[in-house]
C-alpha cells in the first residue's frame, strides 16, 4: 500500500492538534477541536480549510473552449474570462463521473477542479476527450495547494491581505491576484453554503498564506476547519457529494441538476444522446430533503418506507444538523413521494422513524 500523501500544511495541522483521516490517498485533517464548533464557526464567523487533495486539470490552446464544449455538458465557450461554472463530467450513457467547477482563467485557458477521489478518472477522461482539438491537457494537481476561507467574515479576513477589490469578485468568479505577497487564483466559490473564497496557490506558498490568514482572522474568530464539518455544511446547504448523491448510475436530471446539461448549445458533447431523452420526462426517482423530528439521524444507505412499509427510496446522506438542531438527510425517493410535506419513514437500524419531505436546501444564508 502506498503511504497517504501529506499536504504542504501537514506540520501546521499537527501543531494545531488535528485528528487526521485518510481520504482518497491523502492524509487530511478531519477535525481540530470538534466538528460542531468548526461548523458553527463557518456559519457565524469563518473557517479555514486545507483542500489540497482536490484535483486540478488545465486545458489550454486555441480550441480549449471547443474541446470542453465537447467534453462536458456545460457551455464552456459561453463562460467569460474570470468566471466559473458548476458542471459535471458525464459518460456516454449520461451517468455522472464527477461534479466539477470550471474556471475560465484566460481566453484560451481553463482550470477544472475535480473531487480528490475522482481526480485521476477526470484527468484521464479529459485527456481522451480533448484529443483531436487544438487543446493541451495538463494534470496540474501537484502544482496547486488549495485553501478555502469560508463564512460571513471571510471577506473581512482576506481583504487586508490582497490588492484585489473583493467587492468586484462576484460569486463564481475567480482571478489571478496576490494574497500575502503570493500569487494565487482567487475565487469566490465554496462548498459550505456561506460566502467565501478559495485560493489556488503554489504548495511552497501554502504555509505562509495559511499563517497570514490565521493572523488576519484572529480578530474575526477564524478557526481551522476539517473535513468532518465540511460534510455537514454542504449537507445543510443541499449540495450533492459524489459517491452519495451522485454516481455513474445517475444522471444530472436525477439529482435535480438538469440545468447544467446544456442541450441548447450547438456543440455535440459526450452523453448528449443519452441525456436528451432523460430531459424529456421526469425521472422515476428524484432527490429530496428529509427532516426528522426525532433524535436519530437517517444515514447513507438507510431504506425509506411508505405508510405500508414498502421501500420507496434510499438515504444518500444524513446527519444531525448543527445549525437547525434536528436530523436532516438527502434521499432518492419515488417521484410520487417527493412533494414537500409528504410523511415517510426511514428504517433506522431496524426501527421505523418518522420523517417529512422538505424543500432543499435546508439552510439558506441571509443574503
Amino acid at each position, binding site marked *: 500500500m502506498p503511504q497517504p500523501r501529506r499536504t504542504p500544511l501537514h506540520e501546521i495541522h499537527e501543531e494545531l492538534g488535528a485528528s487526521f483521516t485518510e481520504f482518497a490517498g491523502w492524509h487530511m485533517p478531519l477535525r481540530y477541536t470538534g466538528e460542531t464548533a468548526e461548523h458553527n464557526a463557518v456559519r457565524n464567523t469563518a473557517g479555514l480549510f486545507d483542500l489540497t487533495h482536490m484535483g486540478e486539470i488545465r486545458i489550454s490552446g486555441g480550441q480549449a473552449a471547443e474541446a470542453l464544449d465537447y467534453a462536458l455538458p456545460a457551455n464552456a465557450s459561453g463562460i467569460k474570462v474570470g468566471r466559473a461554472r458548476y458542471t459535471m463530467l458525464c459518460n456516454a450513457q449520461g451517468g455522472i463521473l464527477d461534479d466539477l467547477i470550471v474556471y475560465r482563467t484566460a481566453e484560451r485557458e481553463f482550470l477544472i477542479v475535480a473531487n480528490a477521489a475522482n481526480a485521476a478518472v477526470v484527468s484521464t477522461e479529459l485527456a481522451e476527450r480533448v484529443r483531436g482539438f487544438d487543446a493541451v491537457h495538463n494534470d496540474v494537481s501537484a502544482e496547486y495547494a488549495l485553501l478555502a476561507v469560508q463564512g460571513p467574515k471571510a471577506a473581512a479576513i482576506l481583504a487586508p491581505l490582497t490588492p484585489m477589490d473583493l467587492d468586484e469578485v462576484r460569486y463564481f468568479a475567480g482571478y489571478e491576484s496576490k494574497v500575502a505577497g503570493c500569487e494565487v487564483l482567487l475565487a469566490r466559490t465554496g462548498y459550505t453554503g456561506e460566502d467565501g473564497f478559495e485560493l489556488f496557490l503554489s504548495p511552497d506558498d501554502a504555509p505562509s498564506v495559511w499563517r497570514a490568514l490565521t493572523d488576519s482572522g484572529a480578530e474575526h474568530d477564524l478557526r481551522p476547519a476539517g473535513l468532518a464539518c465540511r460534510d455537514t455544511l454542504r449537507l445543510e446547504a443541499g449540495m450533492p457529494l459524489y459517491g452519495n448523491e451522485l454516481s455513474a448510475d445517475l444522471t444530472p436530471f436525477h439529482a435535480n441538476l438538469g440545468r447544467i446539461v446544456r442541450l441548447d448549445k450547438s456543440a455535440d458533447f459526450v452523453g448528449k444522446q443519452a441525456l436528451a431523452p432523460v430531459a424529456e420526462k421526469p425521472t422515476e426517482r428524484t432527490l429530496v430533503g428529509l427532516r426528522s423530528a426525532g*433524535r*436519530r*439521524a437517517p444515514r447513507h444507505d438507510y431504506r425509506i418506507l411508505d405508510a405500508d412499509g414498502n421501500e420507496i427510496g434510499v438515504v444518500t446522506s444524513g446527519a444531525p444538523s448543527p445549525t437547525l438542531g434536528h436530523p436532516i438527510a438527502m434521499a432518492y425517493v419515488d417521484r410520487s413521494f417527493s412533494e414537500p410535506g409528504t410523511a415517510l419513514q426511514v428504517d433506522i437500524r431496524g426501527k421505523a422513524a418518522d420523517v417529512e419531505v422538505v424543500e432543499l436546501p435546508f439552510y439558506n444564508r441571509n443574503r
Partner: protein
Amino acid sequence: MASEATRYTQEHEWVSPTGDGIVRIGITDYAQQQLGDVVFVQLPDVGEHVAEGATMGEVESTKSVSDLYAPVAGEVVARNEQLDNRPELVNAQPYTDGWMVDIRLEDPAVLERLLDESAYRELLDQG
C-alpha cells in the same frame, strides 16, 4: 484514565467497580475521539437485564452511529440521565460525568477477563 481497578474492553469501553458488585460503564477517551461530537446517546432502562456482548444502546455522533455493547452481564441499576440533554459530556469527560450506565454484575469474576490499563494501552498502541 480512571482508577486502578478500572478495566477496559476491545470495544473501547471502560468498566469501573463502584462497590456492592456494581460497575459503572462508559466509553474511553480514544472512543470519543474516534466518534467525534456525540449528539445522542441511547441507553437501556433501569431494571433491564443485559447479556455480555449484547447491544445495549447506541452512541450517535455527527459523523456516525455506533452500538454500545454490554461488556458484562447483569441488571442495569442506573443510567446517566444527564446525557439525554447533554450528550456532549461523553466528549468532554468520558471517564467522569460522561458515564453511561451502572450494572449489577451477574458474575463478579468477569472483571478478571477484561483488559487492565496496561493491556488497554497496548491495544491502542497497536493502532
